[in-house]
C-alpha cells in the first residue's frame, strides 16, 4: 500500500522545492482562464457522461428492445478509442479545412468562413463532446453492474405502494447505485483532468495545460508539481463530497435474485425511439470515427503494415493483463480487510487513489523518483560491500511500467470492488457465519460470485486503459520497447493520423474483445 503512495508523495516533495513560484505570473495572466476552462470541461463532461451512461444502464436493466444484445456490447466500444485519437479524427473530418466543410463550401458555392456558420470543433464544446463520447462507457459499465444487483422486488414494492416511476428511480434505484455512479463519475472527472493530448490539440488551456507549460516551457518542475497538487485537490473535493453524502445515506441491502417480471418489453414508437437513440450514439461515438480510421488504414496499408505490429500488440496485451491481475488481487485484499475490520478507508488507501487524477507524465515522474532512488541506493550499498554495481534494477524495465499502471489505475479497481462489497449487506456475512462458514469460505462462495460483475467491469476498464495509456509508457519504457499506443503516438503527434490509423484500429480491436467477453459473462449471470 505504501508503495502505491510513493509517487504521490514524490510529487509532493517536488512541489515543496519549486524552481520558482509559478503563481504570481499565472494569477496575473491566464489563471482565471485555466480555471474557467477546467471547471467548464469537468461539469460539461460529467453531466453528459452521466446522462448518457446512466440512461443506457437504465434502459438495459428495465426494458427489452430489439438488438439489445448487440447494443449491450457495441455501446461499450467507444472507450476502446483513445480520446486524442477521437479528437484527431473528428478534427480532421469536421474542421474548416476538413473534407466535410470543404464539400459544403463547394456544394453551396460559399467562398469563405464569413458566409456560413459551422460549429468549431476545436472549442470547449467540441472538447466536452469528445471526452463524453469516449468516457460515458465508464458510467455505463459501473452503473449497469450495480443496477443488476438492485432487486426487482424492491422496485415492484415501491410501485405497488404508489410511487411513480420517477420517484421510484430517485428514491429507490438511485440511492442504491449511487456509489457505483460516483465511481464512474470520479473516473470520468479524473480522466478529463489528467488529459493533456486532447486539450492541447484543441488549444483549450486548462490547468493541466498550465502544468505542462510550467514544466516544459518555463522549466519549472516544482511549479508544475504544485499545479498537479491543485488538480489532485479538485478531485479530492469531488470524492470527499460523494463520500460524506454516502455516509449519511443508507447501505442498500439487496442480493435477492432478480424477479422475472422485469425487464419490460418495449414496442411501437417507444422501441423506435430507443433504437434511434442507441443507433445515433453508436454512430457518433464509434462507427463514424472507426470508419474514417478504417479508410485511412486501408488506403495506406501497404505503406504502414509491419510485422512488428504483432510484437507491439503482444507487449500491450501482456502489460494490460498483468496489471489487471495484480490490481484485482490487491484491491480485493485491501477492500476485504477493510470490510472484516469494519473500518473506513485507510489514509494510505485514499492517497493511493489519487494516482488516477494526475496527468500520466506527472505520475511517471513520481514513479521515477522512488525507483531511481532505490536503485541507486542498492547499487551504492553493493559497491560499498562487494565492489560491484547492480546498475538500475527497476528503472527502465517493464517493472517500472507495471508499477506506474498500478498506481494510476488502483482507483478503478479498488473503487469498484469496494462499491461492490458495499452492496452486499453485512447481514449476509452474519447469516453465513451463523451457518458455520469461515471467512475464506464466505469470500469464495458468497462474495466472489456477487462481486463478479464489479470485478469484471473494473478488469475491462483497466485492461483497455492500460492499452491506451500513453504518457507514462512513453517516458518509463525500456529500450526498443514499443506498444501500440506509443507507435500510434509517434505519427499522431505530428498530425499524421493517416499513418497511425492502422495501429489505432488494432488498439480498438483489442479493446473490443474484452467488451464482448464482459458482456458474455454478465449475460450468463443473468440467465444461469
Amino acid at each position, binding site marked *: 500500500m505504501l508503495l502505491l503512495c510513493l509517487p504521490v508523495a514524490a510529487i509532493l516533495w517536488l512541489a515543496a522545492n519549486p524552481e520558482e513560484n509559478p503563481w504570481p*505570473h*499565472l494569477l496575473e*495572466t*491566464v489563471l482565471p*482562464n485555466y480555471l474557467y476552462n477546467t471547471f467548464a470541461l469537468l461539469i460539461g463532461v460529467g453531466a453528459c457522461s452521466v446522462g448518457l451512461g446512466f440512461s443506457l444502464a437504465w434502459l438495459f436493466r428495465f426494458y427489452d428492445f430489439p438488438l439489445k444484445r448487440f447494443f449491450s456490447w457495441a455501446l461499450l466500444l467507444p472507450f476502446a478509442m483513445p480520446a486524442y485519437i477521437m479528437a484527431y479524427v473528428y*478534427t480532421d473530418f469536421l474542421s*474548416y*479545412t476538413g473534407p466535410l466543410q*470543404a464539400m459544403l*463550401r463547394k456544394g453551396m458555392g460559399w*467562398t*469563405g*468562413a464569413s458566409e456560413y456558420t459551422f460549429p468549431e470543433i*476545436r472549442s470547449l464544446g467540441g472538447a466536452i463532446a469528445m471526452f463524453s463520447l469516449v468516457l460515458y462507457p465508464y458510467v455505463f459499465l459501473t452503473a449497469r453492474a450495480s443496477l443488476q444487483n438492485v432487486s426487482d422486488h424492491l422496485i415492484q414494492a415501491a410501485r405497488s405502494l404508489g410511487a411513480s416511476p420517477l420517484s421510484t428511480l430517485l428514491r429507490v434505484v438511485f440511492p442504491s447505485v449511487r456509489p457505483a455512479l460516483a465511481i464512474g463519475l470520479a473516473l470520468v472527472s479524473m480522466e478529463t483532468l489528467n488529459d493533456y493530448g486532447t486539450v*492541447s*490539440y*484543441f*488549444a483549450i*488551456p486548462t490547468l493541466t495545460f498550465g502544468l*505542462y*507549460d510550467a*514544466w*516544459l*516551457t*518555463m*522549466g519549472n*518542475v516544482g511549479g508544475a508539481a504544485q499545479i498537479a497538487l491543485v488538480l489532485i485537490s479538485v478531485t479530492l473535493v469531488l470524492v470527499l463530497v460523494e463520500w460524506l453524502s454516502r455516509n449519511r445515506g443508507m447501505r442498500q441491502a439487496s442480493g435477492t435474485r432478480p424477479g422475472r417480471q422485469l425487464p419490460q418489453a418495449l414496442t411501437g414508437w417507444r422501441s423506435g425511439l430507443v433504437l434511434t437513440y442507441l443507433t445515433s450514439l453508436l454512430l457518433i461515438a464509434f462507427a463514424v470515427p472507426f470508419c474514417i480510421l478504417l479508410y485511412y488504414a486501408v488506403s495506406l496499408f501497404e505503406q504502414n503494415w509491419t510485422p512488428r505490429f504483432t510484437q507491439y500488440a503482444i507487449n500491450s496485451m501482456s502489460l494490460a493483463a498483468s496489471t489487471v491481475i495484480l490490481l484485482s488481487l490487491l484491491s480485493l485484499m485491501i477492500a476485504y480487510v477493510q470490510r472484516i475490520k469494519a473500518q473506513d478507508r485507510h489514509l494510505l488507501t485514499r492517497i493511493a487513489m489519487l494516482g488516477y487524477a494526475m496527468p500520466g*507524465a506527472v505520475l511517471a*515522474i513520481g514513479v*521515477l*523518483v522512488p*525507483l*531511481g*532512488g532505490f*536503485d*541507486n541506493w542498492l547499487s551504492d550499498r*553493493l559497491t560499498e560491500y*562487494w565492489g*560491484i*554495481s*547492480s*546498475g*538500475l534494477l527497476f*528503472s*527502465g524495465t517493464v517493472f517500472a511500467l507495471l508499477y506506474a499502471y498500478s498506481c494510476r489505475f488502483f482507483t478503478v479497481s479498488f473503487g469498484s470492488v469496494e462499491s461492490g462489497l458495499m452492496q452486499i449487506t453485512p447481514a449476509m456475512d452474519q447469516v453465513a457465519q451463523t451457518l458455520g462458514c469461515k471467512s475464506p469460505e464466505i469470500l469464495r462462495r458468497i462474495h466472489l460470485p456477487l462481486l463478479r460483475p464489479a470485478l469484471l467491469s473494473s478488469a475491462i476498464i483497466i485492461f483497455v486503459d492500460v492499452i491506451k495509456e500513453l504518457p507514462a509508457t*512513453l*517516458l518509463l*519504457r*525500456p*529500450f*526498443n*520497447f514499443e506498444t501500440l499506443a*506509443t507507435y500510434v*503516438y*509517434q*505519427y499522431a*503527434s*505530428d*498530425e499524421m493520423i*493517416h499513418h497511425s490509423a492502422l495501429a489505432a484500429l488494432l488498439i480498438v480491436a483489442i479493446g473490443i474483445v474484452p467488451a464482448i467477453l464482459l458482456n458474455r459473462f454478465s449475460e450468463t449471470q443473468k440467465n444461469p
Partner: protein
Amino acid sequence: MICTGVNMHLKSMLTLLATGLLVSSNVLSQEVNIYSYRQPHLIEPVLSRFTEQTGIKTNVVYAKEGITERLKREGRNSPADIVLTTEIGLLLELVENDLVQPIQSPLVTTHVPANYRAEDGKWVGLTLRARSIYASKERQVAKDLNYEDLADPRFKGKVCTRPGKHPYNIGLIASMIASKGEAETLKWLQGVKDNLARKPQGNDREQVKAIKEGLCDVSLGNSYYLGAMLSEPSERAWAEAVNIVFPNQSNRGTHVNASGVAMTRYAPHPDTALKLVEFLTDTEAQKIYAEVNFEYPVKPGVPSSALVSSWGEFKRDNLSLPEMAKYRAAAARLVDKVDFDG
C-alpha cells in the same frame, strides 16, 4: 553456524550475479543507448545506416517529454549514452542540470561550425530548420516579408499559426526579444494576435491547409514541413497552394533553430557514443537528414535536398542559439500576457 551458512550462500549468489552483470556488459559493449526527443520514424534511417557501417547496435527510448527528469533520477547508473533533441532549449536544459559531458572529437569540431555547437562540446547541433512564413500563391502575397509584417494591419484577419506556447514559436519570440527588447516584442505579439484569422491551433501543416482553404493568407511554419507535405501525395495539393518565404532578408535574417545531440554525464559506452556523434555530423548522415526530413544539414558543403535547394539560399539570423534560449521563459510570459492562445 546457520547464519554464516546463509551469509555465504548470499555472498556466492551475489558474486554470481556480479559475474553475470560483468559478462553481459562485456558482451554488449558494442552498442549505444539513446534517449530521443526526436520521433523514431525520423531517426531510424540514420541509425540503421550507422549499425550497418559499424556493427554497433543502437537502442532507443523515444519520449516527447521528461527525458531530463528520467536522466536526473537515474543518476550515475543511467544506461543512456546520448540524447537526441528537437531543439536547442532541450539541449541547454540538459546542460543546466549538469547531465552531460563534453563531446571531445576533432572530427565533430571540423564537421560542425562553431556557432552550432557549445564551445566546451556539451551540445552539438545536427540539423537546422528555418522558421519561415508560408504565403498564399493565389492571393499573391509579396515575398519580401519580415516577421514584423505579421502584426501589420494589412494582414488583419489573415494570419494563422500554431499555439504561441509551442517551442518553435517560443524560439521565434525569444529571438525577437533578443533583437528588439521585451516591450517592442510585446507590442508585436499583440499585433499578431489582433491579426489572427482564428485561435491558434494545430501544427504547421494545419496552417498550410487553412491557407489553401482561404481562411488565411500567411502563416508561420518550419521549413521542413513544406517538404514533407509536398512529398506526401494526400497533402501535396495543400502544400502547392503556398510559397515559402524566408523573412527578414534585408535585415537580421530568418530565425533558425537546431536539433542536436549531447552525451550523458555517466554514459556507460562513451566510445561507441562518440562514434555515433561523429557519424551523425558526417556527410552521409547529414545527407539522410536532408533527404528524408528536408532539414538543413549543419555540416558545410553537404547539399540540401533538391526540393529544399530549389527554395534558394537565405540569410540566417546569426544570433547565437544559447543567447536566444535565454529569453525563452520571458517569451512564454509574453504569450500569456497578451493571452495569445486564449
